[in-house]
């Protein structure tokens, strides 16, 4: 009797392949597997980089060789063989493109499957999209419009060529090369990414958006993003990811650096949907990301992330609140299902006086997955009257999933106010039955309940992203109640 929806749904889900699991057949210009100085020289040469950039990479490589992969996260995975990875792949594009019409039709189809119709994006949403296909940016739009305001939004490769003074000034200042194993690796081999500069006093009139996509089989993706908001400026930056299905693990070690100068504001939103692997976790993306921003006087950095993908996630978007009266925010929804593992959270480092930070973290664990929040709130002696509020909630969808919270609080100034709230709950059978009794099916019931739970975070996202994020949450949790 009763509803046997659970079994049905489980069956469907295990039978359902990853929605964005397709690959585009585009000829690739690919480096042989392995990492050594020659490969780095090759990457640098392919990208026609100036000497200083190559030098920077080689130094990073030297540092990386002395470092060890961290084993403190609450993660269990087979460490990648870094010599088995190919560190460069570029779609073969014979000439520079002037408009979207010149883009390879195959590539365009991929974008459309991802729901990124660039024309639509351009016309309707006013989003400038810098689409990164593998490692080389193939299409950039809205650039001229932005240029009128003095805003620079381009690929990192282009920035190295066109704006070396800005790149040299800021690259590696927020996430130093030797910060950690993955940031060192990224510094040595990053192939592309995005660069954004907002001049003094300019409010960027549109959401800047980059869609990343791993495409070449066996290619690690090492993105490097740098956003600099000059004094009194404002920018909202969106980053969204989908990845195709793969048999072997794919490594993704990105570095994102944000610089908010005096009275500037940066809002950085991410929807992450890398391939999570099959039901056993085989073949999913390893996502080891270092994201950090520095806040100068009266500036604000707000991170919002919706993490639903990857087999393994290691990610702590952080804020260094250096300037007095600066504000850091972190809003996160992390969903893990099947055999996924996530160890994510934030660091709020309070250095300036009257600095404020807010942390809202919502973890959702389903299947046999493990979801950890790891956060550090550090109030340094100089940070008089610093304040932090943290709220870390965990929602368990099954008896076999795990939620873990590792909050670290270090207060070295007696005037600080730090609040931490945490809850763990299991999704209510009563809530689900209530929905079912109203004629709402099990999938939609879970979607409603979970989106309600994550609402505080989803509300932080720009409108068009919020809709996408809601869909992702539902897709990620299909058939996950047990």
């Amino acid at each position, binding site marked *: 009797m*009763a509803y046997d929806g659970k079994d049905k749904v489980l069956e469907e889900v295990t039978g359902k392949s990853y929605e964005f699991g397709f690959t585009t057949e585009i000829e690739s210009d690919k480096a042989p597997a392995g990492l050594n100085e020659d490969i780095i020289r090759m990457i640098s040469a392919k990208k026609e980089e100036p000497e200083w950039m190559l030098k920077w990479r080689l130094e990073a490589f030297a540092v990386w060789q002395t470092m060890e992969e961290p084993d403190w996260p609450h993660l269990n995975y087979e460490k990648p063989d870094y010599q088995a990875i190919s560190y460069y792949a570029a779609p073969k594009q014979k000439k520079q493109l002037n408009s979207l019409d010149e883009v390879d039709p195959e590539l365009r189809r991929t974008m459309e499957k991802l729901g990124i119709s660039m024309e639509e994006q351009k016309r309707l949403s006013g989003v400038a999209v810098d689409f990164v296909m593998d490692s080389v940016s193939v299409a950039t739009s809205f650039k001229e419009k932005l240029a009128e305001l003095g805003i620079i939004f381009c690929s990192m490769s282009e920035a190295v060529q066109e704006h070396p003074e800005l790149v040299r000034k800021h690259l590696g200042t927020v996430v130093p090369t030797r910060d950690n194993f993955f940031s060192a690796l990224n510094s040595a081999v990053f192939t592309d990414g995005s660069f954004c500069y907002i001049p003094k006093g300019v409010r960027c009139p549109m959401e800047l958006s980059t869609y990343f996509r791993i495409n070449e089989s066996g290619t690690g993706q090492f993105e490097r993003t740098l956003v600099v908001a000059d004094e009194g400026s404002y920018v909202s930056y969106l980053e969204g990811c989908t990845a195709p299905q793969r048999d072997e693990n794919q490594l993704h070690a990105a570095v994102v650096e944000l610089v908010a100068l005096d009275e500037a504001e940066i809002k950085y939103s991410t929807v992450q949907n890398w391939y999570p692997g099959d039901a056993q976790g085989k073949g999913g993306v390893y996502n080891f990301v270092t994201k950090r921003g520095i806040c100068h006087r009266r500036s604000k950095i707000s991170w919002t992330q919706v993490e639903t993908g990857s087999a393994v996630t290691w990610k702590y978007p952080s804020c260094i609140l250096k300037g007095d009266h600066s504000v850091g925010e972190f809003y996160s929804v992390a969903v893990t299902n099947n055999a996924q593992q996530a160890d994510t959270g934030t660091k709020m480092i309070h250095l300036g006086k009257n600095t404020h930070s807010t942390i809202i973290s919502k973890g959702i664990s389903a299947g046999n997955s493990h979801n950890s929040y790891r956060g550090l709130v550090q109030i340094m002696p100089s940070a008089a009257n610093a304040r932090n509020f943290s709220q870390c909630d965990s929602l368990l969808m099954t008896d076999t999933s795990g939620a873990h919270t590792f909050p670290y609080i270090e207060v070295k100034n007696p005037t600080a106010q730090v609040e931490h709230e945490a809850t763990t709950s299991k999704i*209510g059978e009563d*809530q689900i*039955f209530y929905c079912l009794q109203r004629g*709402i099916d099990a999938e939609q019931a879970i979607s409603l*309940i979970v*989106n309600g*739970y994550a609402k505080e975070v989803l509300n932080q996202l720009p409108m068009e992203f919020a809709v996408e994020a809601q869909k992702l949450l539902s897709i990620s949790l299909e058939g996950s109640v047990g």
Partner: protein
Amino acid sequence: MLTINELKASIDDAQILKGLNLTIKPGEVHAIMGPNGSGKSTLASVLAGREDYEVDGGSVDFDGVDLLDMDATERARAGLFLAFQYPVEIPGVSNINFMRAAVNGKREHEGKEPIKGKDFLDMVKEKAKLVELDGRLRNRSVNEGFSGGEKKRNEIFQMAMLEPKLAILDETDSGLDIDALRIVSEGVNAMRSPDRSFLVITHYQRLLDYIVPDFVHVLVDGRIVHSGGKELALELEEKGYDWIKEDVTA
């Protein structure tokens, strides 16, 4: 409308319903009364398709189809509504969005397009009047922070929105003050019609002063042991259940 034949059901291996028979015709209002633990709420849950309960035997025909063959969602979409004794809170999900999902679920079942935004809002406005559910409550998260009376009014509002064929009210009167009881009852009465049936489960005769039933049944130990007209409720109020229990055992 509803024909229950020798229904047996258990939870955690304890049999609660032990061969229950009940027939409800279109337009009729049936009340089920009975002492604590007699199986009243179990009957409501089993009919609604709650999966914690195991059906051990018997059959239930709902408007010509085998009710026990459907899952909870299908039963709801087919027109069975349960007003919960303890309505559930769903934080972060607005009452309006919740109802839109429900209404569209039913429409999908009927082969209709999802309801248009304006039509939906007009419908909400109209139905909310029935139970005096103001805009503030409509836009808040489902039942979150609602008083006991507000929750029950919200149940009746949802019932009005979904226009079921059969509405089961599971102790809807519990926790209601006299004013809320009046509002809720008036909402229910406004919905009485020749093709809609009600199964009213209650402990107290009080509710039946407002929602006057056509039939009253007494449930004892998983079976209906006595049936009568509305006057039976008054008799029960006066004499309690013991005389019926004695009758049964005698």
